[in-house]
């Protein structure tokens, strides 16, 4: 059986999503990944789907972590920042409260990662030890 590349899988997934719902597409994608014994590549494939989504439709998906809930204004500022960086038309971020960040924020998308948390310099300082 021909083994698909990650990019091919991502493009096919996006094509399916245009006609079908996520609930329908996800099991098909999961089955293909399991059949090809590529479960260890799930994260990379997901990132590639996000990347293709950004390239083809201008949609940036990802997560944002903060210690406290963000205000609407701050959320807009962060989205504006991400648009400036990635030239995405729309931003879809999943918000996660993470007390381990100590302060600041952390954004993870398929194409970029911004770690502006207070935990980062503290970890860097700690890594000296």
């Amino acid at each position, binding site marked *: 059986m021909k083994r698909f590349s990650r990019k091919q899988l991502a493009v096919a997934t996006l094509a399916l999503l245009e006609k079908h719902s996520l609930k329908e597409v996800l099991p098909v994608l999961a089955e293909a990944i399991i059949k090809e014994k590529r479960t260890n590549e799930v994260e990379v494939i997901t990132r590639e789907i996000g990347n293709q989504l950004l390239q083809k439709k201008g949609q940036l998906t990802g997560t944002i972590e903060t210690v406290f809930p963000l205000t609407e204004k701050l959320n807009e500022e962060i989205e504006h920042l991400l648009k400036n*960086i990635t030239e995405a038309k729309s931003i879809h971020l999943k918000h996660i409260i993470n007390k381990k960040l100590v302060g600041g924020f952390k954004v993870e998308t398929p194409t970029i990662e911004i770690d502006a948390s207070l935990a980062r310099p503290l970890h860097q300082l700690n890594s000296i030890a």
Partner: protein
Amino acid sequence: MFLQIAIASEKAVEAAASGGIGAIGIDLRSLIFQIINFAILLLLLKKFAYKPILDVLENRHKKVEESLKNAKEIEHLKSSLENEKDTILKNAHSKAQGILEQSKKQAIEVLATAEQKAIERDKQLLVAAHARINNESEQVRKSLLGEVASFISKTTEKVLNQKLDSSTDHTIIKEAIAETQKNISQ
């Protein structure tokens, strides 16, 4: 032979007695006998006394000459030996002096080499000691730095966890956004 001489002398005596010497009061017979006696004595002395004495004298003379010759040879030999002894002593002295000089030179060289080696070893020990001290102080510094960093990190984290409120966090986020924006622009 003596008989012939006696007969001849008897004839001579008879001839003389008839005239000549006998006329002046000399007894020719007695004279001839005395001459014969003297001759015989001379012959006897020559044969039995003079010759052994002369032989003895000659031998003694020869021995003396030989002794003198030997003495001269001994003297010469002694002188030669003395010279040889002097030469040997001189050579031995010269050799001994040479050996002594060489020994001194070698001793100085050995001392200089040993000194140089000791200096080199001291230098190496010094360098090694410096390196060890530097290494140890570096390790101590790193360890201390690590401990201080760990202490600061943990303390800061604790303080921030306790003291950081939503408003301050939002200010920090705003500043971080501005900083990131500034970095992108650059």
